[in-house]
């Protein structure tokens, strides 16, 4: 059986009635399907910190969520943009300045307040190992979901799109983790959350360069 280009074109035109779902919808559905897995990991191993009701009155506790959710939202917007073939990062990269700026403002704010603990103690904290393990592990199901969503698109920069998928999942997993962790210093967040997110981003880039080609 042969298929010349005119015949292929006729066949494609015959399939014109088929409508694919928008990439955003597929991404949302995939993340919703993966979320219970990450939540299960969270509640089985970590759980919300016991003093959460009082912690909520600490602005540095709340800031953690602002930072991680800003990261996840920025990454979702950028990843949807990059799912279009003609898209580049230009004009969208600044979105990541928001979580970084919030964190920087938090560090500045903390510096100006009197502290019980010295700076290095706050930075090192007491949960760095858990943080660097839990965030990447809880990210994994969400990373797979983000990659599934983006595969439905047409990213022509698969490694970059995969890295952004890593940031989507790291941002969401870090949001969960933030409710467990008792280290609220922005210095701790800027150090360990960043290392954990960078790890997931690297895994995302590697996976993306393989699975996001179309």
């Amino acid at each position, binding site marked *: *059986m042969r*298929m*010349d280009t005119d015949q*292929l074109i006729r*066949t494609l*035109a015959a*399939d*014109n009635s088929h409508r694919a779902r928008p990439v955003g919808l597929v991404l949302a559905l995939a993340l919703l399907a993966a979320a219970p897995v990450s939540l299960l990991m969270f509640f089985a191993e970590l759980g919300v910190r016991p003093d959460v009701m009082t912690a909520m009155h600490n602005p540095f506790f709340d800031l953690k969520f602002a930072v991680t959710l800003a990261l996840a939202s920025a990454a979702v917007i950028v990843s949807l943009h990059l799912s279009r073939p*003609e898209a580049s990062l230009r004009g969208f990269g600044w979105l990541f300045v928001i979580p970084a700026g919030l964190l920087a403002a938090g560090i500045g704010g903390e510096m100006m307040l009197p502290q019980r603990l010295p700076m290095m103690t706050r930075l090192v904290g007491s949960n760095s190992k858990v943080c660097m393990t839990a965030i990447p592990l809880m990210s994994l199901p969400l990373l797979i979901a983000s990659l599934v969503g983006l595969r439905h698109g047409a990213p*022509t920069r698969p490694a970059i799109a995969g890295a952004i998928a890593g940031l989507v999942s790291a941002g969401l997993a870090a949001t969960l983790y933030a409710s467990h962790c008792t280290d609220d210093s922005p210095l701790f967040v800027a150090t360990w959350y960043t290392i954990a997110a960078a790890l997931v981003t690297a895994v995302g880039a590697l996976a993306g360069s393989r699975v996001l080609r179309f």
Partner: protein
Amino acid sequence: MRERDEEWTSLMRSAISGDSAAYHRLLKAVAPVLRAAARRGLARAGQPVDQSEDIVQDILLAVHLKRHTWDANAPFAPWLFAIARNKLIDALRRRGRRVFVNIDDFAETLPDQPAAETAPASEVAAHLNALPARQRDVLQSIAVESASIKDTAAKYSMSEGAVRVALHRGLSSLTAKLRER
């Protein structure tokens, strides 16, 4: 060039809103442009240009299966050329060359350049034989025998919906097989 781009964009808008004839015209219009660009890319990479038709078919399949990523408020040509460029780089890489493809290769190409010299394509055809029988029958009927969806449904005692599903699955698995190479 601007006129051409506007015509493409308006044809694609009609296609998205269900006009298959407009879609057919659009694909017929872009094919020679893609062919010329593919030949140029192959020639520059020192590859035989008679493989250009495989690249054209690869691009057309990707355009078809990824058309939901086109924003109907944006011009069509940049989207098309981004897909085409991606596929051309892919094809050249697979043939063992790392080549930088300039996006302007496409935009500069005149539609009526070497349309006459169409080399036969072999890759899509080769994968057709590996499809499940039902999908192959439907593709054969529509592509080779130019039957309509309705006629194809009658011929194989299928519902029109089932023909549509088999057609779309057939095209998707062809694309997946092309990617696996």
